[in-house]
């Protein structure tokens, strides 16, 4: 065994750790042993984080698995966000709207996370596609977990059909890339110029826009977020969204960077459409889950806005995009955790998913009300919380390009979004037209497991703390994402570099 074997394993090791976790959970599910869940989860997630850290720090030779996977500080920061989002979602995953045990959804979530990690570590189109499909297939099955609920069955069907539809378009784009360049590696594609690549770019943008849920193709999102059980929705809203955005970002940043003049207007248009229509439609929603679906469409628009600054390719852009992704993850998971504490995770979550449920919550359960206020304000973008800082970074990146109208549109949209986020805060604290203030509500019936409530409160606390912490101390994230570079002095430069694997196919393979 020479050193290259270990090098190549190191790039894949975080994914393998999460897969091992999934398999262990699958085997444990046969024994109905519940108390091992959290220790296992913590152990394996920490291992995965550690190996991802190592992979980003230790320079590996570009042979063997280096042709397929990459491990640099961008991958490290994305893996960190994905793993923490998975950890929080898995803590939320306690009781489903079904009588079966919860093991299957645990297992599928772990596999889905491994697929997401494959996607962000991919340096080859095949690996990107396989990772995307592992993620997608696991999530299609997950969204139908509540088998007794019609809404869940319908949500999983819609998600499946439209998701596979989008995958086929994306795959056609990949096939045309292969046809134009004869190669499947992300970095090599960037060096060629062929008219067929424009066609491929169009198809890929179409496919990814579907998967991310941007404006003209967002129709599946509100239905799926409303229909799937709430533990699954918190996973979809964060992990799938971040992975899809990250993969799109990698494709545009590495492979299609020369075509910037072509895709920048398209991306800018999609971003503005998503922001505007997402915010406008969210104003009319009564169901919290649908409102959060539209808010995720709007936030995808904000993140997409940052892509237009890729041509300048400053290192600040990478860290600001990952910062926004982290912010989005924390806020959304927190909001879903609070929602789950209020509506419960049983079969009544579909009836309780209205604004009316939040009436007077601020006085009845003050800690929960405070946390929800934090999350709503952060989503709206109010300083000094993490949502505001993320938006500030993204806006400042876009201002550096010439597209000022984009920033103006985004600022107007942020103001519009205040309305529906603050409406939740208003309902919680002040008397509204529902007028049930003072009536005692049974909010703890479905969560008859005290341990479950403990998990949920833990998630809410951590999210709230991180929302404040990363908002106030934003350099913490930059330091964290640069940590492998700075700690391991073997790296030549400490700049954030997205190094696709170098292309020397034949020689280093057959050692």
């Amino acid at each position: 065994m020479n050193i290259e074997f270990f090098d190549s394993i190191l790039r894949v090791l975080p994914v393998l750790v999460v897969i091992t976790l999934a398999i262990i959970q699958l085997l444990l599910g046969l024994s109905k042993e519940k108390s091992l869940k959290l220790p296992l989860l913590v152990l394996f997630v920490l291992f995965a984080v550690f190996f991802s850290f190592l992979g980003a720090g230790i320079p590996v030779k570009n042979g063997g698995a280096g042709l397929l996977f990459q491990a640099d500080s961008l991958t490290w920061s994305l893996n960190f966000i994905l793993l923490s989002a998975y950890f929080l979602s898995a803590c939320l995953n306690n009781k489903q709207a079904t009588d079966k045990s919860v093991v299957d959804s645990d297992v599928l979530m772990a596999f889905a996370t491994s697929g997401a990690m494959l996607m962000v570590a991919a340096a080859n189109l095949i690996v990107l596609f396989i990772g995307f499909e592992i993620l997608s297939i696991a999530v299609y099955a997950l969204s139908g977990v509540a088998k007794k609920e019609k809404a869940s069955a319908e949500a999983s069907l819609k998600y499946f059909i439209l998701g596979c539809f989008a995958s086929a378009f994306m795959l056609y784009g990949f096939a045309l890339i292969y046809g134009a360049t004869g190669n499947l590696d992300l970095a090599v594609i960037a060096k060629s110029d062929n008219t067929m690549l424009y066609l491929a770019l169009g198809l890929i943008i179409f496919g990814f826009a579907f998967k991310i849920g941007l404006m003209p193709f967002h129709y599946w999102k509100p239905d799926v977020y409303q229909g799937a059980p709430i533990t699954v929705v918190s996973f979809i809203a964060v992990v799938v969204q971040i992975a899809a955005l990250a993969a799109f970002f990698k494709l545009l940043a590495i492979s299609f960077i020369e075509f910037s003049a072509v895709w920048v207007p398209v991306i800018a248009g999609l971003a503005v459409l998503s922001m505007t229509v997402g915010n406008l439609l969210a104003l009319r929603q009564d169901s919290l889950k649908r409102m959060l679906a539209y808010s995720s469409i709007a936030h995808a628009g904000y993140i997409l806005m940052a892509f237009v600054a890729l041509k300048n390719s400053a290192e600040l852009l990478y860290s600001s995009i990952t910062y926004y992704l982290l912010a989005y993850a924390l806020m959304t998971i927190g909001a879903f955790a609070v929602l789950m504490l209020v509506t419960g995770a049983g079969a009544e979550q579909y009836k309780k998913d209205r604004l009316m449920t939040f009436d007077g919550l601020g006085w009845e359960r003050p800690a929960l009300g405070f946390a929800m206020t934090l999350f709503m304000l952060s989503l709206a973008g109010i300083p000094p919380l993490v949502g505001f800082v993320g938006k500030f970074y993204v806006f400042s990146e876009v201002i550096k390009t010439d597209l000022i109208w984009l920033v103006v549109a985004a600022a107007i949209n942020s103001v519009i979004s205040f309305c529906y986020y603050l409406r939740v805060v208003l309902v919680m604290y002040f008397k509204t037209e529902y007028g049930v203030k003072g009536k005692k509500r049974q909010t703890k019936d479905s969560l008859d497991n005290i341990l479950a409530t403990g998990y949920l409160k833990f998630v809410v606390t951590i999210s709230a703390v991180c929302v404040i912490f990363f908002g106030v101390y934003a350099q913490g994230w930059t330091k964290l994402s640069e940590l492998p570079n700075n700690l391991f002095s073997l790296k030549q430069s400490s700049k954030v570099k997205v190094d696709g694997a170098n292309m020397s196919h034949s020689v280093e393979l057959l050692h």
Partner: protein
Amino acid sequence: MITFYLIIAALLFGIGVLGILVRRNVLVMLMCLELMLNAVNLTLVAFSRLHANLEGQIFVLFVMCVAAAEVVVGLAIIVNLFRNFYTVDVDIANGLKN
């Protein structure tokens, strides 16, 4: 002649897209999905023949496996849907729009 296969594949892809947009039966939509994936496979094999490279065929192999896995999960979802709605008609199973 490669162009001929590419055009056939493009038209097949279009037929699949049309099928998903037009048909109401979920199983037929699944079949049209398979048509789309087959069109992509044909494109990949044609390009692999053009570049005399085997990576296209490897990609086709993986796409076939992915299509099989998708069909498995899709059929399970359809069975679940059928148990809830007693129909496979998409226009009937459309209750989430408020």
